[in-house]
């Protein structure tokens, strides 16, 4: 049941990003599913973070024009990096500053992973043409801005869902 809720939340965030934010001109910047993955990795157990990353990656792979698997690998890279930073580098209770740092690191890691993995796929003629200068330049700055703006609402959403699950169990 928990995993179904995660899939539903990710799908709703994807629809929100294109249906609402897209209409307001913000659809192509930032990624609400990525934010949810980052917050889950930071606050939940590893298994839940892993499932969330895989589900978000597969969903975005099916909806986007990149080769299937590219975004899934990028999400797993983000999962690994943020989990390592939280548990091995910082090793203290999360506060707002750590949240911001992890979101920045996660967003950068996501873009870099997509570009790198697409390059690897291009070696075997399976990738698509991606302008890495645009993705790691202007798009990354926009993604960071939008992700930082929506970090707190997504955090509240995660807490709301977690409390609902706890009150039901």
């Amino acid at each position, binding site marked *: 049941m928990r995993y179904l809720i995660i899939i539903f939340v990710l*799908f709703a965030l*994807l*629809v*929100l*990003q*294109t*249906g*609402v934010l*897209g*209409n*307001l001109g913000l*659809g*192509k*910047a930032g*990624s609400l599913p990525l934010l949810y993955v980052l917050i889950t990795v930071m606050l939940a157990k590893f298994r839940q973070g*892993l499932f969330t990353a*895989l589900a978000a990656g*597969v*969903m*975005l*792979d*099916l*909806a*986007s*024009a*990149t*080769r*299937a*698997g590219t*975004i*899934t*690998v990028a999400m*797993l890279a983000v999962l690994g990096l943020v989990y390592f930073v939280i548990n091995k580098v910082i090793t203290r209770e999360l506060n707002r500053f750590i949240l911001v740092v992890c979101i920045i690191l996660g967003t950068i890691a996501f873009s870099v992973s*997509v570009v790198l993995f697409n390059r690897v*796929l291009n070696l075997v003629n*399976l990738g*698509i*043409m*991606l*302008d890495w200068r*645009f*993705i790691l330049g*202007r*798009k990354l700055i926009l*993604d960071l801005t939008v992700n930082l703006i929506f970090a707190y609402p997504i955090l509240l959403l995660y807490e709301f869902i977690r409390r609902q699950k706890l009150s039901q169990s």
Partner: protein
Amino acid sequence: MTMRFIYTRTFSVAFSIFVGIALLIIFDAKGYLGLARDGFGRLYGRTSGTVSTGVGATKEVFQTLFTIRKLVRENAQLNQQIDELSFENARLQSSRDENTALRKSLNFKTNSNLELLPLEVIGADPSGFSQVITVDKGQEEGVGLNNAVIVSPGLLVGKVTSLNPHSAQVTLITDPSLIVSAVVADSGAQGLIQGEHGLGLSFNLISQNEVIKTSDNVTTSGLAGDFPPGLLIGQIDSIKSSGSDLFQKAFVGPAADLRNLKFVFVVKP
């Protein structure tokens, strides 16, 4: 002892994920994920389309309240433009008739109407890494790879770059991976149009001795065989050229409204 790690749960999970992703990539490359992309694309596209319609309607209500005065002023300007365009249209119709007659008399193939297949846009790439839309017809309905995609009345939108059985992905002209051979309608100056990540189009490799000016219409030349000739791409917004450059460069605003595409047409060869 060093091999004992392969019996651990962590290794099993990691190996399963690795195999799963490899299969995902292989199946997508082979086209086996077409039905999955169809199904998910439709579900996601319809849902976000419904939400988008609702948001659009709410936006319109607020916009209408604030722009009533602006509409009155624009209405007066548009009425004047209609009069001017009607006169121009009559003049062009006469030129077209003359052109058809001349072509017939010289035994040229007459301009035939394009064979079009209507499509509905059901989604767009949410990742932002490319300018791609998903349409509701695919290989089974007669859509072909690399077919040109237009909106009425002949404005170029993009090209079909990926096919599934019942859906297709169209790369827009604002994506930098798409290069279109183009010509300026008035002067005949030729060059290449390339997208600027959804922010417009750059018109490159225009010879220095060609005369181009802002507001010139840019159409497809058809020389590369990629798009039928005569499809309107946009108008020149600005020109970047200096005497020391080998070529001129211009910036073109797309004629089609690529942010609000609902219905498009595939040009069948």
